[in-house]
């Protein structure tokens, strides 16, 4: 028996060895090829677009309702930043676009690394990473397509997407927050591609929003070119943000009349999406004609600011300081107070802001990390007068901080000035006597404000006082320009433009996820911030379809581009107009706060303790004081 078993085993091994290695499949289904949408779902929603006020089927909260109720679609039509805005995965599957899916294969291992999706109307390629790579930093740029990873679950591809820009889930103003996550499931049914996409939005939805779309293989279809070229501003439309004041939108009952539905049903909400609500709906009477509907907002989303204020006060730990490459030779150090933009190269290190005092040790460590891992830049043009400097000082072994530019006098931006100037890394350019050389540069108002003995060690050594100032020399191969933003967050705000890298450090006039910390007592005003953001948008260019191009380093939060700044500016204009209307009607500050003029934006920007109350008060005071003058 033993011999027989041995003979059998040898036979099996021989059979296996005589056959070629079996082919390994890189994915359980073949999604590659060209696909065309089948537009038999939600025809009215898709073409020509949902009626204003039609929120049927959406599990939205009151903050989202208020955003949509006050939304005027002409805003989308008139803004060059929005006309070519691509649809994100919050909506793309219903976007009519044909698409092509390709495989991206590692040339060495031949493993499937990613799927690449190109829609007809897209600024680039949407990558679905299948190689297990981690998600980007919380401070990384958000894009219209976001960052997507995928995995196969049986015969279904599951895609998870984060890092999305603010967008929409319906084209009548129902918003999708930049905090939203989208989970997509794609499977095949013969020649059909079934695409389910679920939006999970902690800011605007109370339950996941699940929708689906169907595509059909179109193997001979070539994606049309899409040279999206927005309309320019028309006379009087630059910086105009069409919107309705709360309660003023005359169209909010239009869909109820046209669909012969109860108005309560058109308002959406998770409860209206369940079959049980049919019994409730049956007791309600649809309006026969449109009327002036005055919505009230009462759900939990109206209390975001109060909930933030109820959090215990905590001193920042600064224990997660991160470095990111932004563009060219500009990096950012985040998590050490205000964001610090850093130009690093052959000339040494230029810092825009120094972070909080308590974070200085970690900030200096981060600068060392940037310099030691410096990417070798492209050689400068032969015409550059600083080529010799570059050649002789390129990639210094030890970090050398040459000077600091401060964007304001706020302590989370200037707090580190003292410690960094005392650091051995701080080796200024210029005179043998360092005290004669440029060390810290800011607007004159910053120096004046920090002149008190308690803050004198943080004060700039050099100042400028005009509307713009250009650094006296190229630094790391590029011009560095400072722009004063008068009476914005304070009276001494500066934006710093690295011209060749095309990066602008905006300081606190732009923050990706908090309201601007306007300080009226230090000369700040809401109009000044809006004016500064207009200038920032005008200085910036996008690469294509409202994305990329000039990179904006915000005072706090993740990196942005002109579209992010434009959306932020438009939010401020909407809030300004609401508060202005209340000031004009003679409301007191307490009455304005009670009216919650920022309720619909608080989920995105009001999650910091005390921030909303301070912001509303600053807006009110700057408008009330303007009215007096």
């Amino acid at each position, binding site marked *: 028996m033993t011999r027989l078993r041995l003979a059998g085993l040898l036979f099996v091994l021989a059979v296996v060895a005589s056959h070629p290695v079996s082919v390994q499949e890189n994915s359980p289904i073949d999604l590659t090829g060209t696909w065309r949408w089948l537009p038999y779902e939600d*025809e009215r929603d898709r*073409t*020509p*677009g949902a009626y*204003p006020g039609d929120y049927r089927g959406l599990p939205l909260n009151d903050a989202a309702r208020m955003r949509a109720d006050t939304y005027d679609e002409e805003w*989308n039509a008139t803004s060059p930043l*929005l006309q070519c805005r691509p649809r994100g995965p919050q909506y793309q599957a219903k976007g009519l676009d044909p698409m092509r899916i390709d495989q991206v294969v590692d040339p060495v291992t031949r493993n499937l690394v990613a799927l690449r999706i190109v829609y007809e109307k897209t600024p680039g390629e949407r990558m679905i990473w299948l190689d297990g790579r981690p998600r980007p930093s919380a401070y990384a740029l958000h894009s219209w397509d976001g960052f997507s990873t995928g995995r196969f679950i049986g015969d279904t591809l599951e895609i998870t997407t984060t890092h999305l820009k603010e967008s929409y889930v319906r084209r009548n103003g129902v918003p999708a927050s930049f905090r939203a996550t989208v989970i997509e499931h794609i499977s095949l049914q013969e020649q059909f591609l079934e695409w389910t996409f679920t939006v999970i939005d902690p800011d605007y939805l109370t339950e996941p929003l699940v929708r689906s779309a169907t595509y059909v293989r179109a193997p001979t279809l070539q994606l049309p070119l899409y040279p999206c070229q927005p309309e320019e501003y028309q006379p009087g439309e630059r910086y105009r943000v069409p919107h309705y004041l709360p309660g003023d939108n005359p169209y909010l009952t239009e869909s109820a009349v046209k669909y012969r539905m109860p108005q309560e049903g058109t308002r959406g909400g998770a409860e209206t999406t369940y079959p049980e609500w049919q019994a409730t709906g049956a007791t309600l009477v649809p309006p026969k004609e449109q009327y002036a509907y005055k919505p009230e907002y009462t759900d939990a989303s109206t209390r975001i600011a109060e909930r933030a204020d109820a959090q215990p006060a905590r001193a920042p730990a600064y224990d997660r300081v991160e470095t990111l490459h932004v563009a060219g030779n500009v990096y950012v150090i985040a998590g050490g107070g205000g964001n610090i933009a850093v130009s690093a190269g052959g000339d040494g290190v230029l810092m825009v802001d120094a972070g909080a005092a308590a974070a200085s040790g970690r900030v200096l460590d981060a600068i060392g990390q940037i310099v030691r891992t410096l990417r070798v830049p492209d050689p400068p043009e032969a015409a550059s007068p600083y080529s010799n400097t570059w050649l002789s000082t390129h990639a210094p072994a030890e970090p050398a901080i040459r000077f600091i530019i401060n964007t304001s006098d706020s302590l989370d931006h200037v707090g580190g000035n003292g410690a960094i100037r005392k650091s051995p890394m701080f080796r200024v350019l210029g005179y043998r006597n360092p005290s004669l050389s440029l060390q810290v540069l800011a607007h004159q108002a910053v120096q004046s404000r920090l002149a008190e003995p308690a803050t004198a060690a943080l004060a700039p050594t050099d100042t400028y006082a005009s509307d713009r100032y250009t650094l006296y020399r190229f630094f790391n191969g590029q011009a560095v320009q400072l722009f004063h933003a008068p009476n914005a967050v304070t009276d001494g705000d500066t934006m710093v433009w690295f011209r060749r890298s095309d990066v602008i450090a905006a300081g606190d006039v732009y923050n990706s996820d908090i309201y601007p910390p306007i300080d009226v007592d230090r000369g700040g005003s809401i109009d000044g911030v809006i004016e500064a953001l207009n200038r920032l948008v005008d200085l910036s260019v996008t690469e294509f379809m409202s994305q990329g191009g000039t990179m904006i380093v915000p005072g706090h939060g993740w990196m942005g581009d002109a579209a992010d700044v434009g959306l932020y500016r438009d939010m401020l204009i909407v809030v300004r107009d609401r508060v202005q209307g209340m000031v004009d009607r003679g409301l007191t500050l307490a009455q304005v706060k009670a009216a919650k003029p920022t309720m619909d934006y608080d989920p995105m920007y009001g999650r910091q303790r005390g921030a909303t109350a301070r912001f509303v008060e600053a807006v009110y005071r700057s408008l009330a004081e303007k009215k007096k003058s």
Partner: protein
Amino acid sequence: MSMRGPFAAIVAAAVLSGVSLAAHHSFGGTYNVDRQITLKGTIVQLTLRSPHSFVYIEVTDEGGAAQRWTIEGASAQQFAQQGFDKDAFKVGDPVEIVGNPSRSPNSTRARLIKITRTTDGRTWGSRAGEVVN
């Protein structure tokens, strides 16, 4: 005719031709498709582009003042397929335009339904069966 018919026809035509509708923003949200206005003026600019094309006309209001109106239409590619190319109308043409007005208060924007050059009657329309004639 209700607007649903033409839209459905355009969708169907787009699907059959493999060309999608651009419509980044919502026409139904931007314009009041239940209303029509007629404007008489002179073309001062014409941009055939994606996502949408525009005819800009100068209209003289009741007080005698010139007013610039922005008339929005389909993308350049869709327009071209429907016979509206760069030679169809020219800057300086006196025209009569039928359109859907903006929903936005005090707006001088409209969505193009029909345009007629008043000197020779040359017409283009987006309703079913209408093309340049």
